[in-house]
């Protein structure tokens, strides 16, 4: 029988240009391939997560994908109520027999783009703009910093956080100001992990003739020539796989940790940025990537000890 | 608005008030309701050109409403308006101004934080950019001031002028717009005798230039002094027209109220007792560093009424506020039944009330009442902490309501409804409510400011009688008023204040208007010196 899949997007909304949109692209791809449509809901406040998940389960949806770490408590509750429904959560771990938890090694992907940034930088200063000062974003920043320092021990990494309210994920104006201030201090490559705020960062990079790095999905097309690359976090694949595995009868619960080795994270190279990435850079990054996969190079995970000491 | 045309040219070649010329104003069957209240019922009025026409009537009789209709501020439900014999539709003040009507409202229509010139040119500017308008307005203002002897500082802020000056600004506003008909709604309610006299001189010279004037007032003396004709309103209806020469105060009073009214009070000689209030070198300096009350000393004894006369703005208001604990003392002090208050000792109105000091404030709406409250709530303002009204947590609604009903009955407050919103009572009745609140608690010292401002004669009579009976019951009364009539008829002793100082004292039986007037202008020969 056909499955009846569902996805519950988080507060950013399915068009946040990064995380949720990645999931959206993944499930759209599934829909296009199989012709199976899915239910969806975008939450607008903390309480709706549980409501939406439960409603999906009640309506017989299976599997149900929850997007974002904030949905973890809700999934935990609802998955217990509906032991026969399969759930998947992206970016958090919920230890239940009917839940698949997908987490990413963002630090590995960020490490690679940090290398690219430092290799490309002429000033030796690279920048990072985060949305909000939360652990996930610190994880991105920490990996990025390691990557930059890996290729240039004296590289300077400037960090800025956008704000403290949910508006911080949708404030291109402030993103633009943060980027300008970093450029003013000599930064020439900036990496944004800040949702819609990134739009302002990329635009400013373009206006100032500097380079920017996108996040989550491949954002290279947003400002061709300015986008040095994008750190890919394959939430689209994770969501697609959740649906596909259920459809094909290959469903498995448990934790999936997706890093470079699993192609869960990576960096984007396409016609929009191929002129920016020289063969040397390419070689260095590929080598580091292989080392990380092989375990020869380890990237410190901020989450492992809540600090960025490496 | 085009440039204000000097009016004399029109007036000069027109014979003044001819019998055959059509009335300057004719109102036919004007009807106006505000919701359920019918403020004007088929009112007719005819005003001769070049005459001063008085309109009198109790509070709420509909005078202001009628004039506001003539001025286009309200639109009548029914009726016709003829100006100079020509039927005119007046739907807004703009129409009225175009028809040559100007109005000085009972409550001034000035913008407090704008200068006099700006207030005057508002709506009658000569162009889109002010610079030229200001110049034109100044020139015209100078001319008007010269012609009518109406001087005001054109650059002063309207809100900072004394009321008398504010009124001049209102008159100048009307003249500036070339008014040929001038309506004045209770213009003298806030003026000193000197200011009133001056106003009447101005009205007289306007009349000579051919201006038609409609004058609303509660003061029959003024009607008799300046008007040519008089109309009486009662309960929304126009009930009588008289030629002033052929009527008398008594007749008008009776027409107005519908019963005989005593126009003067007879009171017994005072039985003055122990000193209740002794003020010594009391001073108050305001934030700008101006001494508002300057080393004032006097005493008030139980069973006497001490009146303080003075042109408004000479420190009387501040004196009352000091004595009632609203303003802090700068230096000096006073003792109240032996208890001493001075600069160091912080006062507050609640503590003064506990000492049985009652205070009827000068401006009932600004500080004596809360417009949005039910009457019963306004009737406990200041006494709301009294255990009679409030327990540990909750207020005792029944007690408050009964108390208010009793006060309303005792003081004839109409309508006698404790639940009615305060704003819905007429001025006179609001005043009675305040007085009832303050008097009914047997104060040892009663501070009264302007007790009858804007109140009709029926109510004045009532209020005066109550103040005198307070005195007779042994209270000390300090009365501040700019009405010399009131001061003279109520007080046992009269102090005169000028620029924050007490410049003289006169026993009531020696006082007359001329003497007090001179003292108020600080022009009197030193007579009895400063009271100690």
């Amino acid at each position, binding site marked *: 029988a056909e499955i009846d899949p569902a996805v519950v997007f988080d507060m950013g909304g399915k068009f946040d240009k990064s995380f949720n949109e990645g999931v959206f692209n993944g499930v759209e791809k599934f829909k296009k391939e199989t012709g199976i449509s899915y239910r969806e809901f975008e939450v607008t*406040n*903390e*309480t*709706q997560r549980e409501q939406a998940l439960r409603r999906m389960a009640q309506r017989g949806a299976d599997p149900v994908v929850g997007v974002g770490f904030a949905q973890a408590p809700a999934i935990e509750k609802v998955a217990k109520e509906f032991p026969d429904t399969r759930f998947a959560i992206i970016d958090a771990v919920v230890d239940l027999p009917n839940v698949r938890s997908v987490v990413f090694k963002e630090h590995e992907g960020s490490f690679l783009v940090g290398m690219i940034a430092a290799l490309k930088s002429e000033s030796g200063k690279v920048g990072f703009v985060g949305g909000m000062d939360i*652990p996930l974003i610190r994880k991105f920043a920490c990996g990025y910093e390691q990557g930059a320092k890996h290729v240039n021990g004296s590289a300077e990494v400037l960090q800025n956080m956008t704000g403290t309210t949910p508006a911080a994920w949708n404030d291109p104006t402030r993103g633009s100001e943060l980027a300008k201030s970093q450029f003013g201090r000599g930064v020439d490559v900036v990496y944004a992990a800040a949702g819609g705020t990134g739009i302002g960062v990329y635009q400013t990079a373009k206006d100032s003739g500097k380079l920017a790095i996108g996040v989550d999905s491949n954002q290279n097309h947003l400002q061709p020539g300015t986008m040095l690359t994008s750190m890919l976090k394959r939430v689209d694949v994770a969501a697609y796989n959740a649906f596909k595995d259920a459809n094909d009868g290959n469903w498995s619960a448990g934790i999936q940790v997706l890093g470079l080795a699993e192609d869960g994270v990576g960096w984007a190279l396409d016609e929009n940025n191929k002129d920016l990435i020289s063969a040397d850079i390419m070689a260095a990054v590929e080598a580091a990537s292989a080392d990380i996969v092989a375990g020869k190079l380890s990237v410190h995970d901020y989450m492992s000890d809540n600090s960025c000491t490496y | 608005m085009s440039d204000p045309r000097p009016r004399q040219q029109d007036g000069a070649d027109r014979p003044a008030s001819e019998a055959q010329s059509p009335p300057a104003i004719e109102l036919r069957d004007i009807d106006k309701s505000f919701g359920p209240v019918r403020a004007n019922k088929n009112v007719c009025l005819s005003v001769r050109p070049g005459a001063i026409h008085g309109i009198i009537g109790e509070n709420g009789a509909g005078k202001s409403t009628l004039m506001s209709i003539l001025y286009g501020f309200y639109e009548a439900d029914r009726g016709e308006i003829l100006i100079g014999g020509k039927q005119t539709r007046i739907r807004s003040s703009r129409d009225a101004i175009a028809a040559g009507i100007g109005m000085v409202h009972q409550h001034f229509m000035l913008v407090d934080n704008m200068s006099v010139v700006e207030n005057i040119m508002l709506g009658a500017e000569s162009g889109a950019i002010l610079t030229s308008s200001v110049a034109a307005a100044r020139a015209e203002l100078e001319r008007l001031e010269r012609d009518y002897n109406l001087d005001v500082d054109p650059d002063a802020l309207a809100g900072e002028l004394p009321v008398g000056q504010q009124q001049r600004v209102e008159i100048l506003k009307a003249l500036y717009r070339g008014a040929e008909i001038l309506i004045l709604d209770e213009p003298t309610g806030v003026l000193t005798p000197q200011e009133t006299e001056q106003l009447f001189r101005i009205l007289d010279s306007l009349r000579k230039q051919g201006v038609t004037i409609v004058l609303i007032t509660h003061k029959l003396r003024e009607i008799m002094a300046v008007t040519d004709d008089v109309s009486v309103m009662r309960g929304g209806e126009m009930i009588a027209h008289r030629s002033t020469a052929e009527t008398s105060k008594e007749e008008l009073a009776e027409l107005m109220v519908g019963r005989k009214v005593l126009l003067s009070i007879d009171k017994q000689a005072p039985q003055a007792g122990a000193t209740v209030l002794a003020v010594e070198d009391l001073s108050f300096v305001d934030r700008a560093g101006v001494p508002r009350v300057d080393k004032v000393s006097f005493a008030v004894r139980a069973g006497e009424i001490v009146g303080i006369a003075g042109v408004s703005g000479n420190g009387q208001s501040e004196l009352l506020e000091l004595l*009632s604990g609203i303003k802090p003392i700068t230096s000096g002090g006073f003792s109240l039944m032996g208890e001493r208050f001075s600069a160091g000792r912080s006062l507050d*109105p609640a503590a003064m009330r506990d000492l049985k000091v009652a205070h009827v404030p000068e401006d009932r709406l600004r500080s004596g009442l809360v*417009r949005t409250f039910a009457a019963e709530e306004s009737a406990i303002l200041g006494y709301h902490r009294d255990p009679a009204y409030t327990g540990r947590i909750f207020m005792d609604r029944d007690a408050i309501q009964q108390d208010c009903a009793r006060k309303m009955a005792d003081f004839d407050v109409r309508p006698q409804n404790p639940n009615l919103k305060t704003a819905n009572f007429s001025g006179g009745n609001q005043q009675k409510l305040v007085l009832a609140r303050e008097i009914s608690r047997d104060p040892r010292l009663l501070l009264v400011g302007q007790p009858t401002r804007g109140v009709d004669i029926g109510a004045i009579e009532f209020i005066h009688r109550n103040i005198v009976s307070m005195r007779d019951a042994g209270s000390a009364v300090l009365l501040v008023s700019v009405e010399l009539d009131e001061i003279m008829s109520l007080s046992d002793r009269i102090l005169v204040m000028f620029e924050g100082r007490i410049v003289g004292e006169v026993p009531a039986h020696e006082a007359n208007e001329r003497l007090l007037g001179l003292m108020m202008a600080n022009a009197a020969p030193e007579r009895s010196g400063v009271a100690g």
Partner: protein
Amino acid sequence: MAAAPGKIPRWVDVALIPLVNIALAFLVSGVILWTIDVNPLTALETILFGAFGYDEAIGYTLYYTTNFVFTGLAVAVAFHAGLFNIGGEGQAYIGGLGVGLGILLMDSSLPFLLILPISILLSAAFGAAWAAIPAYLQAYRGSHIVITTIMFNFIASALMVYLMVNVLIQPGSMSPESREFAPQGQLPFMHEVFGWFGLEVTRSPLNLSVVWAAICCVLVWAFIWRTRWGYEIRTVGANETAGVYAGIDPRRVIVLAMCVSGALAGFVGINEVMGVHHRLLLNFTAGYGFTGIAVSLMGRNHPIGIVLASLLFGMLYQGGAELAFEEPKVTRELVVTIQGLVILFSGALAYMMKRPIERAYLRIAGGFQRPAEQEG
């Protein structure tokens, strides 16, 4: 010309006109829905059914209503003192912080019956404290309360992010959330409460704080209209000079009113933190503080009006979510649009239909009478 002033019965004013206004809002929303191929009538049905149609729906609607009652009352109390408190959002946030900190400290050692009153006090105290600073600055330093409360909203969110990320987060957790409270630190859900009495009710986030909200309505009503503090607040709000004349210190009244206001806003923390999430987390206020402004003004600053307005908003939140759930074409932004239209028509344009409806009423009522008159 103007007919003799006829009597308009009260139900026209309090029931018919608001209904017409809401109908107008839905009419305009209907046009928008129709352009995106959603049947407006079905949509309306979905909203109403989704908000009131079954026990779970009612639970959610009342859960939102609870928040709006708290923030609406908060705005109203300040308003009676003549103060415009835009800071409900921040006060709710900090109130929740107080609850959360308290429970995190107490839940291992104290029983529920002690934790509950302490939590209520803590939420009130923290919310009041967050309102007291702007109040003090307004009363004694002349700072404008609108500016300071706006600023304090931002400061509150910065403080919360700092605490959640650096202090209160569970070690190793991705999510800036505190640990879950122990059971005695959780306010029972209403479905649990009904369960105690043997009634089967579907689960929803509705919890005992709805009862507290109802109590607060009564308390606020009594406080404002039946105590002398309320009397003093209303006096200062309506006429400050009269307040001074009456021996009331306006500065103390300002601080008092804002503290009460902040405390009420802080109770959102009871509902959200202790009642629903059972942990401290970011953004649980979700704009309820701002919506409280509209709730209070639409409810004419009176508890009864505030309850009605809160119900309306609760219905829009819950019914709107159901609409977005049922109709794939309806996005959450469309639901926001509909909410905006409802506030516009039944709040801002509340008087637009008054005249026409009253006139229509008089014509209809008159139409019934006239034939009778002719016969007589």
